[in-house]
């Protein structure tokens, strides 16, 4: 894919998030270019999801700024989505008692504008917009392979399909950037493989992707670039080889060799 387009899709500059005395995210820079799949990895508690929440406006970062295609984003989730960033959640957050189709239609909310009076009066414009929304939603369900279950309740879908539905719902807002928070958590190898194909297919639609994941094989298969977050700090960023061969990454995941154990512990204390 062409990674040489002008403005980056996402540009986070010096994002810091403090909860009282705890610095969960410390001065992180991250850029995602058009057509790119960028991975974000790190041990448990490294601050990956917190960083995601800063990007999507769920948290207001203590310092730093996030811009989308050159415009600084306001820290309000619905405005971030309106600007063109959609996300999924680590623990699936579907609208459990709505049907699969309705879930996706809710995703269309920012791209439609029929208000209260339009809904009550039901003029031709309303019917046209509603039909277009439904058509787009069905397209997305076809795309993710859920079209046959459009009328089922979201809560009754099997786990893997709930993940897919979350992605379809996020895609319904016509995003330029999709943030996936552990999309393969709890999946078996076949499902993971299918998820990988789905992410590539989304990239081919021209949507940039930022993905958090624990599954290294998945991440290195998928991503053009990977950033590693350890204790709130980005320690390295680059392609597969750079990350895999970086000593600090190995230390962060597996622990240091015995002779240097004390020194890394000190470093860790300094960092917090």
């Amino acid at each position, binding site marked *: 894919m062409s990674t040489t387009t002008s403005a980056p899709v996402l540009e986070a500059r010096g994002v810091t998030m403090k909860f009282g005395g705890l610095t969960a995210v410390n001065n992180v820079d991250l850029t995602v270019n058009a057509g790119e799949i960028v991975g974000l990895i790190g041990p448990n508690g490294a601050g990956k999801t917190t960083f995601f929440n800063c990007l999507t406006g769920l948290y207001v970062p203590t310092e730093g700024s996030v811009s989308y295609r050159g415009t600084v984003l306001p820290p309000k989730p619905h405005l971030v989505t309106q600007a063109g960033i959609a996300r999924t959640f680590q623990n699936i*957050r579907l609208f459990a008692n709505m*049907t699969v189709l309705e879930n996706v239609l*809710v995703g269309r909310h*920012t791209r439609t504008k029929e208000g209260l009076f339009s809904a009550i009066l039901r003029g031709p414009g309303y019917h046209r917009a509603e039909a277009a929304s439904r058509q787009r939603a069905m397209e997305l369900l076809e*795309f993710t392979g859920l079209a046959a279950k459009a009328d089922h309740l979201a809560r*009754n879908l099997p786990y893997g*399909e709930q993940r897919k539905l979350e992605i379809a*719902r996020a895609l319904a807002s016509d995003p330029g950037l999709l943030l996936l928070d552990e999309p393969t958590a709890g999946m078996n190898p076949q499902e993971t493989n*299918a998820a990988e194909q789905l992410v590539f*297919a989304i990239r081919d639609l021209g949507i940039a992707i930022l993905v958090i994941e624990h599954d290294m094989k998945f991440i290195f298969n998928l991503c053009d670039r990977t950033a590693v977050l350890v204790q709130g700090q980005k320690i390295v960023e680059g392609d597969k080889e750079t990350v895999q061969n970086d000593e600090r990454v190995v230390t962060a995941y597996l622990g240091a060799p015995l002779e240097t154990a004390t020194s890394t512990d000190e470093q860790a204390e300094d960092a917090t």
Partner: protein
Amino acid sequence: MTTETTPVIPLPVGAARALTAVGALATAASAFLAWTWTADFPGDLTVTGYPGGLQWLTLTAGLVTLVLALASYGVPGLRWTSPSGSDNGLLYAAFGGAAVTWFTIIAIATDLGGLANLEPGGWIAGLASLAALAGALGLPVDRHPKGSSWGLRLAKSDRPLPTARQLPSSVEVLLIVAAFAVGLFAITFGIDTEYGELFAGYLILTAFVVAALSKSGLLPRLRALTIKHRPVATGAAFAAAAGFPFTQSSDQYTSVAANILIFATVALGLNIVVGLAGLLDLGYVAFLGVGAYAAALVSGSPASPIHVQFPFWAAMLTGAAASMIFGVLIGAPTLRLRGDYLAIVTLGFGEIFRITMNNLNGTTGPKITNGSNGIPRIPDLEILGFNLGQKHMVAGVELGRFSNYYLLMLIVTAFVVLVFARVGNSRIGRAWVAIREDETAAEAMGINGFRLKLLAFALGACLAGLAGTVQAHVSYTVTPDQYTFAEALPPNSAFLLAAVILGGMGTISGPLVGATLLFLVPKKLEFLSNYQLLAFGITLIILMRVRPEGMIANRRAKLEFHEADIPAQSSPPSETALTKTGA
């Protein structure tokens, strides 16, 4: 969900079926005997050869049981009454017959002081209904397998209905019209019941007959028909409701019906706030009050400090607008709260409204509302030269004051139903449900949570205000004490919420049915006097235990039950999905 088809009492099937049919026939016939010796018991059950009062209910139950029993025999021409082929419906009908008959016997014994007041006819009825019940218990009914539940273990899941015979469209429409005519008759009978015993019996019978017909598959089939011909069904429902005043000879019960409509309309408005957007509002009756006060102030009442008389349409808009503004004023600071906190704050605002109206009396505040005396002598409405306070002859029937207001209120109710139906099934309605389901996820999907919650609050308030403007005229007087949080009589905030939850959250017919019941029950069962609230509480607990989703389950809840029948499957790896990347 597996079920087994076994009898509750082991009896030979042939004997059980015969016993049920004969018992049902005997029950129906016994309604024509004398049950007691004195006419002191209301309804006069002393006449042989003609049923009276509660005997009509026994007769109905006996006939329904008999018809279902004959359908169970496969008698041609009656099989349509039991399309599911399950005997559960028959069992419910037999239960209903025994319940209503024995209720009558016990009522006679308690009212007149002892079982000695029963004539042989009463004993025959009691034994016949028990025989029918014993027979029905010996029939093979759908039950949960042993150990999964207690008691009779009657299975809840409905059998799949065989496909209906294709009928011409006109016949289907006629069936819908006939069904609504029966519905109008049943509801009219309930509203017109003259004494508490008859109403209690009516409630028992209605509950069992509705259960019986829904198990026999007749009601589900009717529901399918109404969905197929929705405009016809809506029109028939409206026509049946509009037909009510024409069945009445006096204003005695039309005033009850008009108040039911006001209560039901407000409950439907609350259903937007609670059922769709999931905002627990414990002070909702205040919005009805704001509408009523606004209408009273501009009604031209001599007690109003504003000496103007708006035409009705303007008064209505004033009431709705005042209520909406009040809703926004309350909502704007409080809707940032979630869950329990919001409930407490709305409870507080509901009380603030009532106390403020009490204090705007000229001594503790500016003189606007006359304090606890309220605004009396609100003149009757006059719309296009039609004075609603006077009697009019329409189609040969004299319509009194309350009939007029009932019909006016019916138009308001229809409007609120229309708004609810259209908004609920739209972009805005979906966003409300999304907020109810998961507010964080909804905001991440681009929904401005605060703004949509405020919209739900304002729309709910506006609709309640609309009902309030009519209420002010119906009740002549507006006082602060009509708008309390909890009281023995509706409308108040607690009863409104109960109507929504009892009826079924998120549905249209749910709050309408719930409100009708909650209005009629305290009105008709006045003989319970001090135990009224206790009985109400116990009923509520039983209903929530038996049917937590409300009397009328919402489409989504129904889907849930429907899908529970399909065994859950593990997700196969779907390669096919990715070949369809056409989007």
